[in-house]
């Protein structure tokens, strides 16, 4: 890592791998992400609840997808992001990457729970049952267990360095297992309807529904980034407690 990677503007990206430079940067970014999350959320909910038409088969109950689908996407994406940062942390031995992994986990678990919960709320009027043991529900549930396992492991280790690296290995083992789990559960039982949005074929839903869903997805992205940055700042404060550079930040001096 002797050759710094330079952006077009000549900014050294690796500069921000250090907690002391990332901390103020994250502080400046959080309001931007929070506000865009709020704006996208309001816009998405407005489109979802007032503009999008009622579904002729599912009635009004379908509107839960505006929360359900983004949450389900984020739950999977955040685990992959965690594994990515875990890999970066193990390879380059950067503390901040490990902090990012720990910061992402609760948000990922929250989205997984929301996806399961809203799925149950949608399933009751549509399928007539809160829960069925079908492939996607089951693998989402297992994903929630993986998040819990990761958080429990990190909480169970007192030494921060060991917690970081043990968690990183678990996250990587988990991400390799996710496709295996998904396909095994899929072969085991499939009741769930096929995916309604895919990249290869045209969406089978009305354009306004899709707009609402995409807006909510963007809101979920922005929220996840803002929440992770906020949490990473707290982790930095906790770990770097008493460091000289923190004295220049008034909120940390308390």
């Amino acid at each position, binding site marked *: 890592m002797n050759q710094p990677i330079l952006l077009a503007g000549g900014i050294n990206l690796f500069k921000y791998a250090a907690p002391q430079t990332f901390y103020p940067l994250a502080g400046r970014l959080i309001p931007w992400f929070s506000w865009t999350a709020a704006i996208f959320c309001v816009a998405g909910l407005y489109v979802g609840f007032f503009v999008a038409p009622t579904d002729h088969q599912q009635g009004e109950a379908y509107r839960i997808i505006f929360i359900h689908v983004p949450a389900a996407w984020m739950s999977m994406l955040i685990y992959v992001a965690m594994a990515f940062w875990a890999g970066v942390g193990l390879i380059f031995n950067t503390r901040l990457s490990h902090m990012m992994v720990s910061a992402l986990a609760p948000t990922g678990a929250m989205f997984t729970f929301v996806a399961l919960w809203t799925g149950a709320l949608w399933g009751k009027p549509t399928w007539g049952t809160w829960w069925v043991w079908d492939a996607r529900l089951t693998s989402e549930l297992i994903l929630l267990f993986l998040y819990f396992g990761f958080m429990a492991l990190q909480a169970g280790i007192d030494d921060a360095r060991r917690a970081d*690296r043990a968690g990183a290995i678990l996250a990587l083992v988990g991400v390799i*297992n996710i496709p295996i789990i998904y396909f*095994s559960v899929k072969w085991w039982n499939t009741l769930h309807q096929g995916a309604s949005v895919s990249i290869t074929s045209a969406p089978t839903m009305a354009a306004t529904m899709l707009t609402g869903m995409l807006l909510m997805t963007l809101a979920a992205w922005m929220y996840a980034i803002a929440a992770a940055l906020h949490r990473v700042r707290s982790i930095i404060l906790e770990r770097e407690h008493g460091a000289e550079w923190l004295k220049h930040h008034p909120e940390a001096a308390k």
Partner: protein
Amino acid sequence: MGALLRAVIRRDLLLAWRRRSDVATVVLFFIIVVSLFPLGVGPEPNLLRMIAPGIIWVAALLACMLSLQNMFASDHDDGALDQMLLAAAPLGMIVAARAFAHWLISGLPLVILSPILAIQFDLSPELSPILTLSLLLGTPILTLLGAIGAALTLGLRGGGMLLALLVLPLYIPVLILGAGAVDAASAGLGADAHLLLLAAQLIVTGTFAPWAISAALRISAE
């Protein structure tokens, strides 16, 4: 390299032989858990025949997990693990040999016992060998995946429960394919697909798990 593998396996088998009661505990646990289910769900033969593969598989999963807790613990306590980490031989090989020895001690007995337990559940003579074969392919995967968890939770407070939380979600594909093999055979579909997938998973896990176990051991022993 062959001498190293033999030495490590021989050592672990010898240790297990000296502590025979530990091995017996795992096997007895397996038998008792399996025997509890008919008492819980009732003695209806058709029902028992239907749920037998699942029950035997879940019991094997739990028994494997129980046995994992002392896979590295005593070596960690008496310093033998540090010697293995410092040894000139590649840690991955040592770990693979230890996992194999551990499977011989705590996985193979379950495989051998499964036809007897299958009789308890009146599983037909055609299905019983498939159950045994699925366990033969599946239990090494359980040992290898579990060893990653055992290495990560080495020396932690509440290690046993934590190990269960980490490892059980990763066991789910093995459970599905293993119990599914018997179900597919009893439905007349043939168990080949499930067994081949289990074998594929065994190969993949056998290739990559030793690396993960070594890395986890190095982190935990620091």
